[in-house]
């Protein structure tokens, strides 16, 4: 429960930075525009879960570049403000605190994506609300984990580099990761899949989508199962948590070496 209370405080602080959510609304609209052009049936009763999944992928890709640049001081800001010592003197663990900080701030930025998905899901469902549930599942499986991963990568890079350099590096790192699709060959399940940041594998495995990037041409596997998608989702979450933990520990170490 304390995690939620802590996250709420950081949500409140992020909400008071109007530039944050204004940019996120703008980027969401751009992503929705791209998806509507590529999938004209997205917001019509003739649309399908594949359309919603594609919208989820664009919502995960386009705004995430902004997340990668915006979260570089998440781990280092408390040290800069002197708050870190107070927070470290309390029973809450630094990893839990940073996770609450990331969650609280990120929620302010990704709620427009959730709204966009739910609205499109609603418009696909004149006679039932299965597509709304699908929209929420797409949000949970693609948009949110991708956003968290971008934010965690940003916080990690921000804990290592000066802020101005960190923002550029984090955004560039995210673009490289997205463009090259895989981090490293990672055997996952029977199909020996590779981990894909663009969520191709997860969208294929859960929602039956076609890949945005042709993995066959890059030497990847042809198809991902739901099991592959589940494992990749777990790996992504684990990687996010690991980046958050390392960012928190590096910031603490640097804080007390400086003084």
């Amino acid at each position: 429960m304390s995690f939620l209370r802590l996250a709420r405080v950081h949500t409140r602080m992020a909400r008071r930075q109007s530039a944050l959510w204004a940019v996120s609304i703008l980027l969401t609209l751009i992503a929705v525009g791209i998806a509507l052009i590529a999938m004209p049936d997205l917001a019509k009763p003739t649309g399908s879960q594949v359309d919603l999944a594609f919208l989820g992928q664009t919502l995960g890709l386009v705004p995430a570049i902004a997340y990668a640049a915006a979260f570089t001081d998440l781990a280092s800001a408390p040290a800069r403000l002197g708050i870190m010592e107070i927070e470290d003197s309390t029973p809450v663990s630094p990893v839990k605190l940073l996770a609450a900080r990331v969650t609280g701030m990120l929620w302010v930025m990704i709620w427009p994506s959730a709204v966009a998905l739910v609205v499109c899901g609603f418009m696909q469902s004149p006679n039932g609300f299965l597509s709304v549930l699908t929209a929420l599942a797409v949000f949970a499986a693609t948009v949110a984990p991708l956003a968290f991963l971008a934010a965690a990568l940003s916080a990690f890079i921000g804990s290592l580099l000066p802020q101005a350099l960190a923002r550029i590096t984090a955004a560039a790192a995210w673009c490289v990761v997205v463009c090259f699709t895989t981090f490293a060959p990672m055997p996952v399940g029977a199909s020996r899949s590779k981990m894909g940041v663009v969520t191709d594998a997860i969208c294929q495995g859960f929602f039956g989508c076609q890949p945005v990037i042709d993995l066959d041409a890059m030497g990847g596997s042809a198809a991902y199962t739901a099991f592959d998608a589940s494992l990749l989702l777990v790996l992504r979450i684990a990687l996010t948590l690991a980046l958050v933990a390392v960012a928190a520990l590096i910031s603490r170490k640097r804080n007390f070496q400086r003084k």
Partner: protein
Amino acid sequence: MFISVSHLGKDFAKKPRALDDLTIDLPSGMIGLVGPNGAGKTTLMRILCGIVRPSRGNVLVDGCDIAEARNRRALKKSLGYLPQDIEPYPSLTPLEFLDYVGVLKGMDDKRERKRQADELIERVGLADVRTRRIGGFSGGMRRRVGIAQALMGDPQLLVVDEPTAGLDPEERMRFRTLLATLGRDRTVILSTHILDDVAQTCPYVCVLRKGRLRFDGATGNLVDEAHGRTWLTGPRMVPPEGAIVVNAVGDAYGTRYRVIADRCPEGAEPVAPTLEDGYMALAAGSADG
């Protein structure tokens, strides 16, 4: 709360022996912690607060070794800490910030957090600005928010580092009174360069220098270090060679120097020593480190 520090040492990469074989038993009540910059005061406080791990030695709080994570967590629940440099989150109001600190300290009851926050805001004189964002506060007002957050959760151990820095004289007096009240039934460790604050509020004082303990005991005993050695020179006299100049006092006749010397300088008169005199006498005696 009884704190026992045993052979404590701390090395940093860029500063070996920030603390060097420190052994002290700290009683409950108000304890002053003084020393020059780089003496190790802040390092000691961070170790006592469980923020930094010592390189050697141990710290027992009421018999429990805070090296164990469980004991450290228990200590932090009843700890209030005010670091030297603090900037509360600027986009929060004082009430919101205190509520946040209350959550950090494990206070689950929302009403209790609000009650304490309201009471502390009143105590530090910020009632008029309780709903204004901290970003618009002066340095002294932010400091008072810092003092209030240290008191959230009614801590049994209060560690304050330069609490009156940036406060105007009236605020300093108010804070001194507040600390004295708190010291009656808990342990308060006050680190400060303002010896007058220690003299007024702390019956017990520790002096650190170059990571080592130079003095610990009753504040009166530190004053006694300069007993029979404190002199006030006549006007327009230069400080005698070899004497330690504590301060210079200007009056209508010229400048008089308050000095510490084993023998009375010519033309000087003896004066009753203060804590400042005792500290300077001790510092001179241990100058070789």
